[in-house]
């Protein structure tokens, strides 16, 4: 299975004179998990937002399957139904219960019948292990539970791909290696290098990649020591 | 438009005279309200139970009834209790008593934001309770409340416009004269609306200036809320 599901071509985003990222090219195949790593403020979140058109890129194209979604005549509301997104701080709808958070898109966007939608929404909550929290409001859920509701809300739309912005800020490099098929290292708005976890973590080609990896490993290592001492 | 400008020009000296009265009303009302409002707030926060109750009752009643009713009660009602006040004095009193209720709440907010630790600190160096309030709490409260309080002068200036209903010769009274003279009520009231707008803008500008001048970095309502 090597059908490209998402193709990014020469994507560039600027705010005034400030270039957020420049000339990004990336292809994602069906079933792939791609992890983009890089220092903060390097354009990762903006790149994700440009993929589901929450922010418009200045140049370049994004293709979903064989359709150019950055085209002028493309309905962005329809595009976003096919691209699920889980935000860094989850952004659950504060005034709705967990169930209603998942339901809203089904009834208002997919126009499902209320009963059908409810069955599906409950199933999605079940999938993330939160069916017993269906009636809780975001303010009554822990951070982890909120994140799972956000995932259920996105999955309920049956998206072609899912985008996760900072799924967990404390993810260590080894774990990233386990979940991903490919790692992309982004720095100062451009892709420095990409490859399998093994290639990138153990045989990085660029000095900048090595430096970055060394820094995060050291950070992670310090945390560990702290734990032992405590 | 030309007619209107003519009307404006013709009555401008009159309007300026009326505006002077309006400014006087605002200044006197604000001053009475400031002093009385401070007393009410201190009574509400630090007073014994009965005094607290009186302060709360006063604030609720004056905020819960229209100024116009308060004005009529003072001007038409008090004489039947043996106290007759002139129109101007009645207006001063009504505006002052009314504004006091609102200013008391600005004072209270600021006093409570300062918190009890300053009281403890004052008592610790041997000041009495009242001296601590006067020398420690109130000076800080006054600085702290300026941003919120700066709504009150503008609000009061606009509120004064009802006193022409007991025949005080303020700006609005002049507009009424102009309206009956010229048979052009819309033009006349529009003309004084412009004068009011100018006064409000100037006052607003002045208060913003005061706010900037008296600002102490790091000493703001939010910071001190703990």
């Amino acid at each position, binding site marked *: 299975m090597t059908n490209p599901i998402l193709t990014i071509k020469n994507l560039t985003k600027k705010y005034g004179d400030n270039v957020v990222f420049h000339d990004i090219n990336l292809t994602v195949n069906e079933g792939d998990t791609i992890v983009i790593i890089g220092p903060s403020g390097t354009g990762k979140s903006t790149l994700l937002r440009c993929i589901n058109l929450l922010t418009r890129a200045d140049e370049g194209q994004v293709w979903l399957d064989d359709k150019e979604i950055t085209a002028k005549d493309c309905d962005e509301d329809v595009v976003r139904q096919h691209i699920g997104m889980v935000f860094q701080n989850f952004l659950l709808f504060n005034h709705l219960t967990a169930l209603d958070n998942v339901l809203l898109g089904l009834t208002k*966007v997919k126009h499902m019948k209320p009963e059908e939608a409810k069955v599906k929404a409950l199933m999605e909550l079940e999938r993330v292990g939160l069916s017993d929290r269906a009636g809780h409001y975001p303010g009554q859920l822990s951070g982890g539970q909120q994140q799972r509701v956000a995932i259920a809300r996105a999955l309920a739309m049956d998206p072609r791909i899912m985008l996760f912005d900072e799924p967990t800020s404390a993810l260590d490099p080894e774990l990233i290696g386990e979940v991903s098929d490919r790692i992309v290292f982004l720095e100062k708005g451009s892709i420095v290098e990409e490859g399998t976890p093994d290639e990138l973590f153990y045989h990085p080609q660029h000095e900048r990649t090595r430096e970055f990896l060394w820094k995060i490993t050291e950070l992670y290592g310090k945390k560990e020591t702290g734990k032992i001492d405590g | 438009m030309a007619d209107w400008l003519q009307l404006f020009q013709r009555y401008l000296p009159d309007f300026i005279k009326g505006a002077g009265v309006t400014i006087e009303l605002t200044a006197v009302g604000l001053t009475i309200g400031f002093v009385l409002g401070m007393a009410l707030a201190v009574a509400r926060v630090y007073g014994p139970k009965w005094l607290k109750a009186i302060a709360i009752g006063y604030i609720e009643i004056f*905020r*819960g009834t229209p100024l116009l009713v308060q004005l009529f009660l003072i001007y038409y009602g008090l004489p039947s209790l043996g106290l007759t006040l002139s129109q101007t004095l009645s207006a001063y009193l009504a505006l002052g008593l009314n504004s006091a209720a609102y200013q008391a709440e600005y004072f209270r907010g600021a006093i409570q934001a300062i918190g009890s630790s300053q009281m403890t600190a004052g008592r610790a160096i041997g000041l009495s309770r009242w001296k601590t309030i006067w020398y420690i709490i109130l000076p800080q409260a006054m600085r702290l409340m300026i941003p919120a309080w700066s709504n009150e002068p503008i609000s009061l200036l606009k509120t004064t416009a009802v006193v022409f209903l007991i025949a005080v010769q303020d700006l609005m009274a002049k507009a009424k004269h102009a309206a009956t003279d010229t048979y052009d009520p819309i033009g006349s009231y529009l003309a004084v609306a412009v004068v009011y707008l100018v006064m409000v803008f100037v006052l607003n500008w002045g208060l913003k200036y005061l706010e900037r001048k008296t600002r102490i970095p790091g000493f703001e309502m939010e910071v001190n809320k703990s």
Partner: protein
Amino acid sequence: MDVARFLQYIALGTVYTVGVTLIALPSGLILGTLFALLNVYSGKVVKWFTSLYSTMMRGIPPIVLLFILYFIVSGNINLSPFWAGSISLGIVSSAYQMEIIRGAILSVSGGQMMAARAIGMSKSQAIRNVIFPQTLRLAIPPWSNEAAIVIKDSSLVYALGVPEILRRAQLISASTQQPFLAYAAAAAIYFILVFVTNRLLDALERRLRIPANP
């Protein structure tokens, strides 16, 4: 002198006072909400005009505006002072309510709009289903304040001859030579109206409050 009868006469003015409020407050809310939406979500020109409207209307004393609007309204449509006065007060209130709604919209975080758009909602769907329900909850406390102001400002239509509480108190005070009692009765009724309105809206706010862990 029949005290009970004259108090009853003043109290009947409540019908007009409440009537004026019930016309002015909702019409001000509809207009104010519309202007607030335009101000937050539309282009530069509309934003500028709605801001100008708000600044102008809030810079002029309500009674001056009431007189201007009353003469404009009653000069163009054949309306009773009651209706013309109520509508005029509604327009006065619209600028203040616009600021309340605008403030509430702006305090719903931008992320909520983004999250709604991310699941494929259109802008208007997001406003209706996500932004608005949260805005209205946030707006209740300041709106309760504005409701009290409109009840109190309804006394201004006294000057147009509408037989509401204050007007009736004046008539009674003239005929009975008991001005203090008459105006004190009027004050008491206004106080009760404001008090009850505030309590009802407090209760509504508590009822609609979104549950959260302390």
